[in-house]
């Protein structure tokens, strides 16, 4: 069976009818192109590469952890996937990133459409402060659909909040501002917001680094359920966390200060943590640098 590359036009109408949260995913086929493929990808700030020569495939319905010392370009790489990187003046990219076989940086590709297909959760929770919890959850979904009936909106909000493990805590105060929640709840609200937009992939940039251990645990538990439906890429500084929650681990590092970060090793998480193929990986995991 030959796999036709899906175009954006094919993807859009498919999902517009679906009332509840379901990740947009082409029908699984054994030879399917991975949801995310990077080929010799580099990203620079004002001509200075932050991360260079990255080639990797990320399989569907799994959690992939990006680990590595600070400044090796993990965030930059993540922000390149949904074309957020280019919103910084003089930021440039080279190489390819494909979403289900389609070049994200291809000619004529609207970054707005790319961002609707890729959800993102940031290091610091950023709910819209003037909006209620419910409107926060529905913000992305409302951008994509002309009209969302009242019941459809309520269902979508509930299922997204359930998927983000937040429903029970906020179901009685959906009309209250999202900024009134605790840090951990705000972060899960942001995850719910990303889910409600029905992305193909969810990117998370150190989503727990600003949270206390209990909130962190809540989000780690969430990852285990998210993995069933979504393709998740998470940047983390926490080795234990990467080991606990991820299926694959990609280790990035720069050879020297002011050098771009590079992909050193990419494998199953168990392999990376038990038998790393590179000395640098072993040293980093053992806490000898970084």
């Amino acid at each position, binding site marked *: 069976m030959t796999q036709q590359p899906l175009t954006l036009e094919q993807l859009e109408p498919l999902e517009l009818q679906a009332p509840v949260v379901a990740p947009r995913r082409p029908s699984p086929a054994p030879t399917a192109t991975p949801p995310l493929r990077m080929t010799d990808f580099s990203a620079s700030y004002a001509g200075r590469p932050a991360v260079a020569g990255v080639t990797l495939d990320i399989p569907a319905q799994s959690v992939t952890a990006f680990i590595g010392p600070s400044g090796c370009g993990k965030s930059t790489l993540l922000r390149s996937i*949904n*074309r*957020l990187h*280019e*919103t*910084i*003046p003089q*930021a440039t990219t080279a190489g390819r990133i494909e979403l289900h076989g389609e070049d994200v940086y291809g000619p004529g590709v*609207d*970054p*707005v*459409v*790319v*961002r*609707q*297909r890729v*959800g*993102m959760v*940031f*290091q*610091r*929770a*950023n*709910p*819209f*402060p*003037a*909006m209620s919890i419910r409107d926060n959850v529905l*913000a*992305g979904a409302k*951008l*994509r659909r002309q009209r969302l009936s009242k019941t459809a909106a309520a269902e979508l909000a509930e299922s997204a909040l359930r998927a983000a493990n937040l429903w029970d*805590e906020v179901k009685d105060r959906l009309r209250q*501002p999202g*900024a*009134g*929640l*605790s*840090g*951990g*709840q*705000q*972060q899960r609200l*942001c995850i719910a*917001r*990303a889910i409600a*937009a029905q992305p193909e992939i969810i990117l998370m940039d150190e989503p727990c680094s*600003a*949270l*206390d251990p*209990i*909130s962190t645990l*809540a989000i780690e538990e969430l990852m285990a359920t998210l993995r069933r439906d979504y393709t998740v890429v998470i940047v983390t500084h926490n080795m234990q966390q990467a080991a606990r929650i991820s299926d694959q681990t990609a280790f990035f590092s720069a050879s020297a200060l002011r050098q771009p970060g590079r992909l050193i090793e990419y494998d199953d998480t168990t392999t990376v943590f038990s038998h790393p193929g590179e000395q640098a990986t072993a040293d980093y995991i053992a806490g000898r640098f970084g």
Partner: protein
Amino acid sequence: MTAEDRRRPPAPPADPRPISALGRGDGPEGEHGAEAGQSRPDQGLSSERTLGLEQVLSLEQALGPELPSLGRWPQTGPSPAPGAGRWAETTARRLVTGAGGLIVAVLASVALFLLAQGWPALGAGAGQLPAGATDFWSLAWPLAFGSIWASALALLLAAPLATAIALFTVHYLPRRWRPLLSTAIDLLAAVPSVIYGLWGLMVFAPLVAHLYPWLNAQLGWLPFFAGRPSATGRTILTAALVLAVMIVPIIAAVAREVMAQTPVGSIEAAVALGATRWETARLAVLPWSRSGIVAGSMLGLGRALGETMAVAMVLSPTPFWVSLRLLESTNPNTVSAFIAQTFPEAHGLQVNSLIALGLILFALTFVVNALARRVARPRTVRERPGGGLGRRRPALAGASLGSGR
């Protein structure tokens, strides 16, 4: 309540000290230290302090022991250094207190002047008032109406335009062009009103006079545009338009500064959700800057209410006229323009009545200012540890946020 909530460490207690107690200086604070059985090297200084205003300003601290909610001066910590540092501290404190007191005194003196000199006019009768008025209120209320009407129209026209200009400057314009447009707007805000008056009278009014018959034909079914359009164009609408031109840069400048402070976290949240540029403005920039835009608008409204020269030059008023019609050659006058036009010829009680009109204007602007304060209060969004809006990244301009749909 979740485990997460319960285990969250309690927030540090809010600092109960009033701002006036935040300076580590001399004076009554030293006395408190002494009351609490602590000797401080600066006790002698407090007896020197005889300035009345200073005492008023430190009343709050003097009441400290009786009102625990006001807090106490901290009794631990390093003692202030003696010598030159102390002298500078005291001098600076007196200078700034004097400056603060001065402005309060000036304001009080203006208010007193208006009240004392304006009062007699309230009882004035026919023959004693300007413009042949029979009693003060029949003179005052059409003018007050004119001021409010012209300013409200100006605000209605200016606020949306200024918001659009600010949004364009901050959110659409490539970063390198931003200073250019900002400077141009700031310059416009500094143009003296007499210049706007000249321009309005000689250029703008004749121009719009050609437009008014058309407006009258198209929208004449609305009471505002009914009647016979003025041939000179010197109508209340023209005056309001000139006022709008004057206050647009003020509102735009305030709105621009507020919009530029939108947290990057909010903007990126919107952009990452797939918002277009306009949707990002709607989701992140405009909600954030709402109160700032309102505050800027109130500032502009205040300016429009008090504007004298431009209105006096542009508007062709009719005494005692009250009408909502915008295009006719009979128009209400404004308080400030009337005062300026009438004052050179005024004598006796007429002067008092003009001062009383000034009092009305004073009260109007005061109300507008109080309203502005109310709406412009700092936003009350609580920032929780670990939550919050994210750091600022001075970026996201002139970059490709997407072409939109």
